[in-house]
Every structure is written in C-alpha cells, then in structure tokens.
C-alpha cells in the first residue's frame, strides 16, 4: 500500500514555507508602503517644479490630481496648479505612442491661457546617444517649447523642419522628435477644448 505519510509531511512543510515567505513579503510591504508613496509624490513634485515657476502655485500639487480620458482614449492624470485658489496651470501626463522604440511618456505644463510653460520626458526607450536628446539632462531641445502656443492657425507649423514645420530635429533621429512634437501639439489642442479640467473634483493623487 502506498505510504502517504511522507507526502503529507512534505506538503505540510511546503505550506509552512509558503505562509512564512508570503508573510515576510507582506510585512515588508506594510513597512515600505508609505515611504514608496511619498517617494512617488516627491518625484512628481520634482518634475513639476522644473517646468512650472514656483511663484505660480502654492497648493499641494501632487494631490490635486484629476484622472480623465484624453484624446487618445486612455486615462491620463492632470495636476492642477493654483495660487491662493486661483487657477494658474495644468500639468498633463501624456504619451507619444509612436517613438522610435515604443512609447514616450511626457509631462506638459500649460498656463491658463494654454501657453506651454514647459515639457519634460518622464520615461522612454529611445536610442542612447541619438533619440535620448529629448531628455533634459542630455540636451536642451525639449526646453524650446516653453512659451509657445498651439493654435488652429499655427498647428501646421508644429512639425520638424523636414515635414515643413518650424522645429529642428536632431542628427540621426527624425522619428523621435516627430513623435514628441505631435504629442505636445495634440495634447495642447485637446486641453484647450476642455472646460472642466480645473473645476472637476480631484480623483487621484500620489
């Protein structure tokens, strides 16, 4: 007859290990949860402070966050900058889906009149040395958008020079700047059409 004793013993030990190891992971999770959340928030605030002048807002910007469906049909986070309850700027998370190597994640800051305050790349997989000039640490290219407007009249000029636009690309990479410029243009045009981005109730936040 089959002796089932060793089998039950082995499964018992295995179960015990599963409980112990999962318990340890759970414990670490509880210990680090708040710290991770605050680090995430600090990362957001750090990037925002690079593109929005500090005298434009004094609210808890990382908590004043709105999750809405954007022009691409995906959920996007929008942070609202306010100075003493006056609306001053919108910081919109957006994605350029057609980078040379997949998605490029961007943060676009718009003043109340939809002037572009600044743009930053937050995540990308572009080729090091070529397409990664969209990072502010590698080149000042991304800073050229600050102070510009996108209007129905000039939207055709929002393209790289090669496509008849006014923006320089960079040597060896055309697809990357093309994708970034298109994303900034579309995001800005979309935001200009929305009316409740400032007034809607905050529904996310780090």
């Amino acid at each position: 007859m089959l002796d089932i004793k060793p089998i039950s013993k082995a499964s018992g030990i295995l179960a015990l290990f599963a409980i112990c190891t999962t318990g340890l992971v759970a414990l670490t999770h509880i210990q680090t949860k708040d710290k991770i959340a605050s680090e995430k928030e600090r990362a957001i605030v750090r990037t925002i402070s690079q593109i929005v002048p500090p005298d434009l807002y004094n609210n808890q910007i990382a908590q004043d966050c709105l999750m809405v469906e954007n022009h691409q049909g995906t959920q996007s986070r929008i942070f609202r900058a306010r100075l003493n309850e006056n609306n001053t700027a919108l910081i919109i998370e957006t994605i350029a889906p057609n980078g040379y190597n997949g998605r490029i994640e961007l943060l676009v800051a718009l003043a109340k009149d939809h002037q572009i305050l600044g743009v930053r790349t937050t995540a990308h997989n572009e080729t090091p040395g070529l397409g990664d000039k969209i990072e502010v640490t590698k080149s000042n290219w991304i800073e050229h958008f600050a102070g510009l407007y996108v209007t129905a009249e000039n939207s055709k000029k929002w393209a790289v020079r090669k496509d008849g636009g006014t923006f320089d690309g960079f040597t060896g990479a055309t697809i990357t700047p093309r994708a970034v410029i298109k994303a900034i243009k579309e995001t800005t045009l979309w935001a200009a059409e929305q009316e409740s981005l400032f007034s809607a109730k905050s529904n996310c936040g780090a």
Partner: protein
Amino acid sequence: MTPLQDISWQGIWKNNPALVQMLGLCPLLAVTNTVINGLGLGIATLFVLLGSNITVSVVRNWIPNEIRIPVFVMVIASLVTIVQLLMNAYTYQLYQTLGIFIPLIVTNCAIIGRAEAFASKNSVGLAAYDGLMMGLGFLLVLVVLGAVRELLGSGTLFAGAELLVGDNAKTLTWVVFQPDENFLVAILPPGAFIIMGLLIALKNKYDKRIEHIVVGEQEKTKIERARVTLES
C-alpha cells in the same frame, strides 16, 4: 588554503558566476551601460544571494529532498520581492532606472545554483560566506563591464551616482573625456556582448599566472607530501 580562502578564490576568480559559470547574463548584459547601474544591480544580487544562502542553509536539515527546489524558489522569490520593495522605498530613482531587472534577479541561475550546490550542503557560516563571495564576484564583473562601457560610450565614470547615494554624490561623476558623438556600440546591448567576450578572454589569458600566484605555493606542498607518502 583554508576553506574560507578557497571559497573567496572560487567566488571571485576560479568559479566566478559571470565569467566562468556564465549565469545571470541577461540582467548583466542589459543594465551595465554605466558603473552605477552595474553597482546597483550587483548590490541587489549580492543581498539576495547572501539571504538565500543563509536561509537555505538554516532549513537544509528539515526539508525533505523532494521539495527542496520549490522551497528554494519560494525563498528566493520572496527575498527578491523584499529587496525590490526596499529599493523602491529607499533608492527610488535607481529603482526606476533598473526597473524590470530587479524582479529578474529571481531568474538569475547563480542564486538557485548556489543554494543547490553549496548552501544545502554546508553550515550557515560557510554558506553565508559563499553567498557573499559569489555575490562579490558577480558584482565585480558588473562594475568592470559597466566602467568599460561607460568610458567607451560616453567618456564618463560614475555618472548618476546620485541615484544610489543621494544628491550630494553628483560631484562624483568623473568626465574623462567629452566625445563629440557617443560611441553607440559600447552602450547598446551588442557592445555588452563584445566587451563581455573580451573580459572572458582576458581572464583566460591570465588565468594560469594568477592561479600560480594565489594557489601556487599550496600545490607544491601537496605534491611534496604525496611523494613523502610514496617513499614511506
């Protein structure tokens, strides 16, 4: 050679997990585009290896042989998750850079290899020391590979040190030279393969000489003793 010396010798040179056992090459080749990235992944791997060797050695006598592999896997997986959570909390930006390669430490065969080959057969102290030395051997290769690639590719060393040790470390970045164009091959994965190959070749070239320096004396005494036994 004492057992401890032998373990260090095996881990760092003779049986180096990256150069000789060729384990964990996926994260090794993918993240070593700078010294700091290599160092970050190296330290994370070292901690997991140390922790898993200790745990496996502690429980080695209570685990029936049939279920040892699932138990090892469970121990390693939970340790990696813990390291991942800790890095996410305390070195947030480095965690963002290393990203997917931290969870991938689970699949680093060097770790389960040491658990099975060494920790499950040796005392806790020796297992911990073995984990430390194997981890150090892996870390050294990551750092050297990262240094060569960073130097060739972008002309710097220790770029991004602030990711690992905080903002005051920004001054650590050492600009060796400023190339007009980055040497792309060194930064991209193919460069990692080529430079890794060169490192292995270099190790093999000097293998005999270094082995002679480190264990040479030892070998001689052994031979003498053998002759004495034969004569007597």
